[in-house]
């Protein structure tokens, strides 16, 4: 199999957890360029763990399996090495960094990623960066004062989520995970964020949208929907699977899964 033919992103038999407690129990997933996948599941099914493991959170341990990105196993890489390959995670609970302005942080982040991905001479000058930042702020209908605010400090829930999408817009990932980006957003904010995400999506990239509810999927249309239970993907299908879940809840799948497992 040549690298060109390999899918953008593959998870094979992933077993991972935290402090010796296994949470992901043999998870497989293949995502290719131009695809939006939705990962759904009840609380505690391991969705956020999966997001952290893909991004490289140091507290999580991988017991078995591989994560291939562009044909390369990324599990031994540090989080910044993964980011420099074009991976991005929009956090469910972004961390505040007091005293660090959005603009200062993002300029350093954008330039380290740009240099790694496009070449040393592709860093943006302060002026170019300001222009790009203003453009993306406008796209997400965010006030320009965001640039001078401290990173996530004192942000409302909705502001934090928008700020995550702003970062995604500036970092131009090829593979983005959105972890419960819809939670805590009112309907107007959800629409703005979804519009932003849709505008950013292109056939060269892929997205994994982690969500508890079907609601966000009427704004961001997934090509594939997966359901996760107990650290495994137990059902996969098209958008109709999300609608079915909306009507029937997760219980029928739990019952079915319990049967097949026994």
């Amino acid at each position: 199999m040549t690298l060109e033919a390999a899918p953008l992103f593959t998870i094979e038999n992933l077993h991972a957890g935290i402090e010796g407690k296994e949470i992901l129990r043999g998870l497989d997933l293949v995502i290719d360029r131009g695809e939006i996948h939705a990962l759904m599941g009840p609380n505690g099914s391991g969705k956020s763990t999966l997001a952290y493991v893909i991004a490289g959170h140091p507290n999580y341990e991988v017991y078995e399996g591989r994560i291939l990105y562009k044909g390369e196993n990324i599990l031994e890489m540090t989080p910044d090495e993964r980011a420099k390959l074009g991976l991005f995670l929009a956090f469910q609970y972004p961390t505040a960094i007091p005293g660090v302005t959005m603009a200062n942080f993002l300029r350093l982040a954008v330039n380290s990623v740009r240099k790694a991905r496009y070449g040393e001479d592709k860093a943006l000058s302060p002026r170019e960066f300001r222009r790009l930042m203003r453009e993306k702020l406008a796209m997400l209908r965010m006030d320009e004062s965001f640039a001078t605010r401290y990173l996530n400090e004192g942000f409302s829930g909705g502001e934090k989520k928008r700020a995550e999408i702003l970062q995604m817009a500036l970092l131009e990932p090829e593979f983005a995970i959105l972890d419960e980006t819809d939670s805590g957003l009112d309907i107007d904010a959800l629409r703005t964020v979804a519009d932003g995400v849709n505008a950013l999506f292109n056939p060269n990239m892929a997205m994994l949208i982690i969500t508890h509810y079907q609601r966000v999927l009427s704004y961001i249309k997934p090509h594939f929907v997966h359901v996760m239970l107990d650290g495994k993907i137990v059902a996969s299908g098209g958008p109709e699977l999300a609608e079915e879940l909306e009507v029937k809840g997760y219980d029928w799948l739990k019952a079915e899964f319990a049967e097949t497992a026994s």
Partner: protein
Amino acid sequence: MATEAELELQRLGTEYKYGFRDPEQYVFKSRKGLDREVVEQISWMKNEPDWMRQFRLKALEYFLKRPLPTWGADLSELDFDEIHYYVKPTERQGRSWEEVPEYIKQTFERLGIPEAERKFLAGVGAQYESEVVYHSLREDLERQGVIFVDMDTAVREYPDLVKRYFGTIVPPNDNKFAALNSAVWSGGSFVYVPEGVRVEIPLQAYFRINAENMGQFERTLIIVEPGGYVHYVEGCTAPIYSTASLHSAVVEIIVKEGGRCRYTTIQNWSKNVYNLVTKRAAAYRDATMEWVDGNLGSKVTMKYPAVWLMEPGARGEVLSVAFASDGQHQDAGGKMVHVAPYTSSQIISKSISKGTGRASYRGLVKVHRGAHHVRSNVVCDALLLDEQSRTDTYPYMEIEEEQVSIGHEATVSKVAEEQLFYLQSRGLSEAEAMSMIVNGFIEPITKELPLEYAVELNRLIQLEMEGSVG
């Protein structure tokens, strides 16, 4: 491929940038150790008036009588007999850099002083070992009556002013190290700002120790007449030696009615220097005194800039940053002494400890009886970078008056793994993420610095991080 700048950064990360040394080519160097003869010798070489000679000898008695402080940092390895107390590098002082001996000039070039002078300073003093080798002040300020000379020149040329104020704010018997400085002082700055004159761009003094086992004892006196303003900045570096050097300065400041003085220090001594400094200011009616104190280098620092609030309306402020990395103890803080009613003060201290480094906040707020309607606020935040680093807080309050408003907050935090992970997940290396968190932590203080110094401070912290991670 790494860029030139990155290569330089990598190289710097592994070493103290200012650790280079010049060969010793001195006019005079006193023998090691301290006694009456050495003090007499210093005074004789400086051709001082008798009152100053007497002042020194009296101070020497105080120094010899006083025990070492038993609190604060560990000074037990400091051997007073191993120090050269006076080193004279050159016969005369330059008014232009061309007049400074070539090797010393080169040193200051490497430290970026002449460049900084051209770009953003109103006046510069450069001290090398015991003597000030270069001094300049912009002509327009000179014409307005501003005086900015080294302390030895001031004793000769402005004896009345010096005699009136010298040793009044920090008396020779104030503490052991003030006594030591009073006995062997040499160099330092004398600044006089006449009534109503505002010196809008900073004056800077730069202190450089070069010789091994050197003691540097500069003495600074700043007088701001009513309505005047000055911002004085000092920077300090030294080569790295395996043996200890001693820096023990005294700074005295008088800010008269409605005047304002800001004194900024970026201390970056090499990690073999004991830095034991007494800094104190008196602020009179409606006057403002601000100490901005950044301590990064040295083996041991004990320094608590103080403001005595003498008359109603006086305001004092200390903004202190201490960074203690492996093997360092930064014992720093501030003191506010409210002598008069309707005075206010603020101390904001930010300390960072890394590895075996230890940062302590030590501060005093004292309110004298009768000093009612005093407002004072103390905030000390400590940031620990790893498991073994250590921080302590010693906030002393002596309040003798009822009608006062005193606030105190202290926090200790660790760099959260979540913060590091978050920043790294955006493409920042661990070192970059760490220095960003630290720079954010001290941002309330760096935003008070002139841009050039804020950048320098952030860069120094980044270098500390580069050396530590990975």
